[in-house]
């Protein structure tokens, strides 16, 4: 409770809450738009950009206040991931006009993360000794881009899967055919694969410097590699078999679940070096 009285923390949280309100407004409008077959896309984009600007300010303020980036506690990791996922999604929303209604699928996933963010302690943190390296930024940056592209692929896959019902087929009627959406989701996954590979390389460089080994099968490394394998299997399956859009969509969901559990589950159930516990 002592931390809640800290006026600087309160200010930071107020800005963050304002950002979350803007995100929720954007997501709600996107969902209502799909249900009512309207396209309030400019308003949705404006709300998302406003939320992103507020969120950027909140994260920057915390960074300046604590002297390190949002990489340590669950609050910081969730907040910075919501920010990076929103950033990648806003860029895709801006550039891929035809598939903008996928915001109705993507935003609820982000709502879950925002809800989780609201429940964890925003207390002050210290950077572990091995986190004072540029490779931290490179490694985490690539990971965030991977997650962003995978989230967009999940949005497209969600549309494909929801079209199995008459109700949602009608709601997503104006969107391109499933095979075209599937091809786009494949592109997003393939792009994400490149960034996941870069993340593993940057992580290995960091691990070599931080712990004297580039790979040690610690829980986070193991699950990151499992996620990489799942992406490789999904991409190879499209070459080896004639994968239907629905099957491809399920594969992307499996990749996302594995990636989500790796990023947000594994670091907090182990005492591996990734947690900075050594």
């Amino acid at each position: 409770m002592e931390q809640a009285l800290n006026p600087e923390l309160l200010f930071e949280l107020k800005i963050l809450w304002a950002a979350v309100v803007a995100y929720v407004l954007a997501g709600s409008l996107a969902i209502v738009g799909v249900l009512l077959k309207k396209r309030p896309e400019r308003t949705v984009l404006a709300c998302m950009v406003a939320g992103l600007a507020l969120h950027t300010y909140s994260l920057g303020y915390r960074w300046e206040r604590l002297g390190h980036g949002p990489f340590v506690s669950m609050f910081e990791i969730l907040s910075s991931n919501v920010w990076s996922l929103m950033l990648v999604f806003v860029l895709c929303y801006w550039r891929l006009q035809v598939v903008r209604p996928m915001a109705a699928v993507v935003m609820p996933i982000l709502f879950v993360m925002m809800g989780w963010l609201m429940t964890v302690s925003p207390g002050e943190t210290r950077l572990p000794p091995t986190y004072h390296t540029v490779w931290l930024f490179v490694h985490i940056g690539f990971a965030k881009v991977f997650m962003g592209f995978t989230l967009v692929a999940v949005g497209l896959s969600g549309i494909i899967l929801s079209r199995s019902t008459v109700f949602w087929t009608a709601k997503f009627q104006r969107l391109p055919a499933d095979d075209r959406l599937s091809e786009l989701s494949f592109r997003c996954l393939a792009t994400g694969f490149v960034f996941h590979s870069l993340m593993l390389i940057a992580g290995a460089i960091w691990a070599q410097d931080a712990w004297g080994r580039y790979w040690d099968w610690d829980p986070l490394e193991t699950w990151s590699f499992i996620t990489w394998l799942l992406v490789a299997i999904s991409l190879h399956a499209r070459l080896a078999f004639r994968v239907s859009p629905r099957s491809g969509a399920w594969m992307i969901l499996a990749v996302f679940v594995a990636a989500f559990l790796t990023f947000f589950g594994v670091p907090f159930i182990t005492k591996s070096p990734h947690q900075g516990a050594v």
Partner: protein
Amino acid sequence: MPWLARLASLRLTLALLGVLGAAILAAYFGGLRYSPAIAAGLSALAVNLLANLVVTPRLRQQGPLLLFHLALLAIILLVALGRMVYLRGQVEVLDGEEFAGQLLRHDAGPWHPWRLDEVRFVNHGFRIAYAPGLLRQQTRNRVSWLNARGQEESAEIGDDTPLVLSGYRFYTTWNKGFALVFAWQPRRGPPVLGSVNLPGYPANALKQAQEWRLPGVPEPVWAMLQFEGELIPEDRDGEFRLPDDYRVVVRYGDRRWDLVPGEDTAIDLPGGQLRFVELRTWMGYLVTWDATIPWLLLAATVAVLALGWHFWREFSRRPWNPA
């Protein structure tokens, strides 16, 4: 050759990727750091890829994709080579003492070239800041060594800034503590100065005792460091330091001595005389050697750049905005 075509099958690639994933999970849940099943899975994938390179002209014609897969092959080979030549060990070096090429414990591949006896450096002590809650911050350890021209060089190393000598990388670790320096005067022969490293501090703050054997002394000697108060405060920022006020308790059999710094107390033991000299610190280093690392980095970078190039070419053929 139908068998080669079957060996090159993309469906087999998929199956082998699944097998590799299963092997990794089995090793993970079985608590194994290295598993023959993972090695077998990677080897099978390498064979499948080689066969694919032979029988699939499309793969050979697509430069970036070919480069990506060749780089993957190189990574597998380099990882295998790395397991044959690597070294990973630990050593504890007293403040002011020279590392003399001997490791406390190690694990090495059968082809490791063993050039550690050429390596020498002196530990000049360390500074470690602690945040509230005994959270260890950065370690700054001053070390010096003689370069190839015989000139002395020095550097400050840490957990993520190794000292690299003859390819061996020395990293500081969380494992460090206090050392009791004793002078041992045997009944016959010259006096010997030696140290007893106490268990790591503050990880073993309540176990600052050690038992050891002296040459010619039938029973082990036991010594403990005692000091009052909190050396590193738990509720505020602090720093690792030697205690200002301490005493050393020595036991041999049922006899006990309380030694205070500054008092020259001689302990008579069956084989000679023991004197406490001073309290110092020791640092535990992690030592690694793997000559494949730069090549692995090169192969991995080539792989990912080639993959990016391949996807860039593929995806620029059709617009991203689907019609």
